[in-house]
């Protein structure tokens, strides 16, 4: 009940944030140097063409009218019309949204599954051989650019021994999962490098807490002390790290999407920018921003589940 109330109040707080996002996305295009219509038509545009396009895009109207019609487009779910695709932007965005969400979601799940056991083990056996090996492996993985890691892993795992497909997105969901496994793993390596370090150090800090002594003084075996008293209390800072990094990954999937030929938002953004498809860029900006807001909302909910004191404040 408390949690439900917390979620609703957080959702209400998001309304002004989302309005702010639309304003920024809208103004960014208008404050950019140069006139969109001129830039879109390039050097071949005659003054007549430019004037026609300007009025077609509604750019000759006052700013507030343009903004309101942009809001209206968003409310209808169309986001206006794409210049390059000559179609409604909304459905195009939705079609590209799922691969990106699946990729980011899967990579986050893989990262969490790697983080929890490795962080716990290395925190308890700190400065042991495994601790050093994990640190070395993940620092190396993080230092490598994702496209290079992609190539490195595709060679043995998709070409030499064809366990995973080289690229593409697949048909049914199982096939898609198979296609996404390798790229998601590569993204997860970068995420896990951060979260393992973060969780490991908070576990070490919590291990010295007074209530851990209380738990041990009760006569609980060390395993139960770790599972019931240490683990949950060490999660909060790692949730922030994970949320910040996942927000970053959403905007940064473009390289992995390009390497693995996944039709996601990242590759659409790159294509739209080079095509000067400004309405599309505007729609994508709003979409990315909303995703980041949603991730932060999920992180807030996760906090309140982990720590009962959060939902009160």
């Amino acid at each position, binding site marked *: 009940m408390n949690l439900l109330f917390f979620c609703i109040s957080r959702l209400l707080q998001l309304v002004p944030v989302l309005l702010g996002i639309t304003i920024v996305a809208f103004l960014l295009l208008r404050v950019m140097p140069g006139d969109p219509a001129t830039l879109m038509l390039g050097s071949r545009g005659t003054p007549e063409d430019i004037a026609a396009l300007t009025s077609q895009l509604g750019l000759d109207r006052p700013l507030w009218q343009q903004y309101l019609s942009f809001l209206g487009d968003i409310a209808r779910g169309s986001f206006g019309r794409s210049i390059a695709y000559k179609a409604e932007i909304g459905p195009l965005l939705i079609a590209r949204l799922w691969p990106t969400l699946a990729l980011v979601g899967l990579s986050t799940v893989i990262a969490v599954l790697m983080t929890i056991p490795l962080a716990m083990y290395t925190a308890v056996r700190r400065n042991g051989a495994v601790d050093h090996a994990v640190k070395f492996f993940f620092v190396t993985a993080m230092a490598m650019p994702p496209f290079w890691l992609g190539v490195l892993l595709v060679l043995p795992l998709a070409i030499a021994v064809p366990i995973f497909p080289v690229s593409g997105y697949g048909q049914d969901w199982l096939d898609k999962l198979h296609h996404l496994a390798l790229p998601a793993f590569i993204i997860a390596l970068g995420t896990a490098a951060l979260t393992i370090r973060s969780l490991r150090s908070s576990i070490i800090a919590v*291990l*010295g*807490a*007074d*209530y*851990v*002594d*209380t*738990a*041990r*003084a*009760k*006569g*609980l*075996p*060390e395993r*139960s002390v770790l599972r*019931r*008293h240490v683990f*949950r*209390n060490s999660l909060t800072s790692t949730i922030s790290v994970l949320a910040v990094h996942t927000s970053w990954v959403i905007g940064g999937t473009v390289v992995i999407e390009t390497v693995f030929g996944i039709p996601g938002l990242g590759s659409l953004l790159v294509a739209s920018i080079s095509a000067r498809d400004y309405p599309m860029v505007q729609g994508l900006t709003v979409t990315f921003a909303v995703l980041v807001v949603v991730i932060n909302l999920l992180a807030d909910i996760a906090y309140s589940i*982990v*720590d*009962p*004191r959060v939902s009160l404040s």
Partner: protein
Amino acid sequence: MSAAHNTLAVEHLRVTFGKAPNAATAVDDVSFEIRQGEVFGLVGESGCGKSVTCRSLIQLFGGSRPSAMTGSISFEGRNLAALQPKDLVKVRGSEIAMIFQDPMTALNPTMKVGRQIEEGLRQHEKLSARQAREKAITLLKSVGVMAPERRLDSYPHAFSGGMRQRVLIAIALACRPKLLIADEPTTALDVTVQDQILKLILKLRAEIGMAVLLVTHDLGVVAQTCDRVAVMYAGRIVELATTEQLFAKPSHPYTRALLNALPAHGGRGGRLQPIGGSPPSLAAPPPGCRFHPRCSLAIPACELQQPPLAAIQEGHSAACIRIGEPA
């Protein structure tokens, strides 16, 4: 004094942290026993080894493990110092329980209070969830928490400091231990609550028939609660006596200095006498008697040898070479 049954006998306990040349011997050749059902006080300034002595008994060192621990700790016919970790875990909480100094940080903030009480019961007595819950209600009632059925489902942040210490006492006493180690249980509480908590510990001691090892730096608390007392200085016991003996005839200069620093025992003009200087580093203690640099009665011989605990009368001993000299 009859030869009462000893619950705990510590002999030549020595606990060292760190490696040479920075090794610090926090507890140095400490021996004492606690009789069945008695309240045994361990007194001294901060950093004199009281807490380490306590934690050594059940080897609860948290993050900083000692580099060496020697001596014997016999408890109910077993030497705890020689137990395997898995056997020691069975002693903790069931036969020897411990409560800590700061109740604000000693409860898990993300676990309901009821579950924190039930945990020990389920571990040691293999109670079912319902039995453990009923027992937890009884326990909370016995430590004076109102509406225990409702409070079981609260998190620690809904409790005040005094109430949290009550909950911690309930956790400690859940399995009716034979020995309760209370490491400065009232230091972090305000004075009126201190008194309530001490009375509660004494009441429950009588009900359960357990012995209590009470660590404190407050001689007022000692006078109020303890049967016998050991005074520690720089890792060693300097005086061991019954509470009456200690207050009637304090023998070690350090004990006397502590008493003179108390308001009730101050000099004739009501002026308190602080002890000059500060406790020595445990990594490099002074030669001879460790108290001599701060002692008003020190003579050159004090620097030469460490005085052993010598009996003054039945049940009373002190470690000072000037005892027995005409005062």
